[in-house]
């Protein structure tokens, strides 16, 4: 049973990006289960519609949006707010992983990783700073990773993207504080999403053991991140802003 009261987000309008699968989908389900009206954003409208119909509650909306650029993301997010009402909360979880050594990195790889992962987050926060997009006292949580703190071979683009997001969050927290809008990130380690299972299937037994050993409390569940999202988007954390919250089962400690 959830530790959170079932109506703790009643009356709140929350934007969730990357909502068609994995962590974003689980978070959308959790905020909806706690009373929020959710604006679901992803690239694939069919999968979004499936998520929408599965959510508890009414009036959730879906928006097929490409978040690859700062300006396009800002325009899209502002447009959703204009059509459906200002947001009280945003969970930004769009982004892609890339495994590639530095020596092979090209512009297109960085564009892919930084597109939705970084530029889309900048665009979403840019929109949030505008009048009528975010209500005063609202809260924004951006998905980050322990990769922002610890290096891994062949993960430089992903690690750098997550570091960028963590820095963005700290600066935006300062800029938005006069309106009491809070901005935080969640630094997760490996969470058992479909993507994670694909990754595990692609590596050998030795790498599997090494990866597992790096997680003292085991891999996380999407709900673990969802609980942190509830904490950060609800009234439980009104004095927490500019924080990169570790939700990682002590992975960063090792």
């Amino acid at each position, binding site marked *: *049973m*959830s*530790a*959170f*009261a*079932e*109506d*703790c*987000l*009643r*009356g*709140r309008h929350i934007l969730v990006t990357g909502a068609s699968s994995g962590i974003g989908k689980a978070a959308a389900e959790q905020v909806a289960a706690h*009373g929020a009206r959710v604006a679901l954003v992803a690239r694939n409208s069919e999968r979004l519609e499936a998520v929408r119909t599965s959510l508890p509650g009414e009036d959730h909306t879906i928006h097929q949006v490409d978040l690859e650029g700062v300006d396009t993301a800002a325009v899209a997010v502002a447009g959703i707010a204009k059509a459906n009402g*200002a947001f*009280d909360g945003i969970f930004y979880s769009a982004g892609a992983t890339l495994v590639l050594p530095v020596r092979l990195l090209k512009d297109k790889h960085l564009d892919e990783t930084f597109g939705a992962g970084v530029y889309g987050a900048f665009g979403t926060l840019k929109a949030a700073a505008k*009048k*009528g997009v*975010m*209500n*005063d*006292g*609202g809260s924004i949580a951006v998905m980050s990773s322990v990769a922002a703190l610890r290096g891994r071979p062949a993960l430089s683009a992903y690690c750098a993207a997550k570091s960028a997001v963590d820095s963005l*969050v*700290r*600066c935006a*927290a*300062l800029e938005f*504080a006069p*309106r*009491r809008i*809070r901005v935080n990130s969640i630094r997760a380690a490996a969470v058992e999403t479909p993507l994670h299972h694909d990754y595990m299937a692609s590596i050998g037994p030795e790498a599997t053991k090494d990866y597992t050993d790096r997680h*003292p*409390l085991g891999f*996380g*569940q999407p709900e*673990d991140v969802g*609980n*942190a999202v*509830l*904490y950060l988007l*609800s*009234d*439980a*954390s*009104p*004095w*927490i*802003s*500019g*924080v990169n*919250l*570790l*939700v*990682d*089962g*002590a992975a*960063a*400690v*090792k």
Partner: protein
Amino acid sequence: MTSQETVSPVHPVFRDDCFAGRTVFVTGASSGIGRSAAEALSRHGARLVLNGRSEERLRETLGRLSGEGHTVVPGELTDADATAELVKTAARDHGPFHGIFHAAGNFAVRAIKVTRQSHLHQTFDASVFGAYGVGRAAASPKVLADGGSLLLMSSVAALRGNAALAAYSGAKAAVLGLTRVLALELAGRRVRVNAVVASTITTEMHWKTLENADMTHVDANEARHPLGFGAPAQMDDAVMFLLGDASSWITGAEIPVDGGYSAG
């Protein structure tokens, strides 16, 4: 206020029974953050075992708790061994615990040129040696049950330098080091260990330190908090989150609850 609407009215965030059937041990429960957190936990169904130096003040806290079955275990936390014994005895009589919040600790402002060993003891005894003792006791399932949560108090002073806070900064930084190692050592029992990195909370201790303070310094400090100073209630929810099931994959973390202080 701008022309924009603010978010809709506040609803209680945590289920009112989210600590039902749980026993939580709180140090520093005779005042401030410890007392406030104990009250909040009791309102959500927890049974509290309260530790503090003054039995009289602990009983005041006891009188403010909701629900039944709470108890007090007075005692000073001066070193690791005595603290471990105190916590083990409390657990034998009233435990095992499902959560421990080690809120005891002293704040002191003192320039390094006049900081003596005795002052270091005042600052390190409860905050650091007490935390080691609590941690040692918590390593036993008879004290902190499997899957339980231990929460220690650190401070933004562990992350940023401030003149005349050498002892306090060192003590709070030590807590962060301890937190990481305890998280690894206790992960096998799924016991979680985290530290709250707090900044200025307007407790009685805060008002007391203001009595002789230079107000321009206090104002400058408040200006460094983008969301202003905090109130004890804002710490309560962090304590409930980190001791409760919603954070069951969070361990070894230092969690700023600081009004944006450490973001800038």
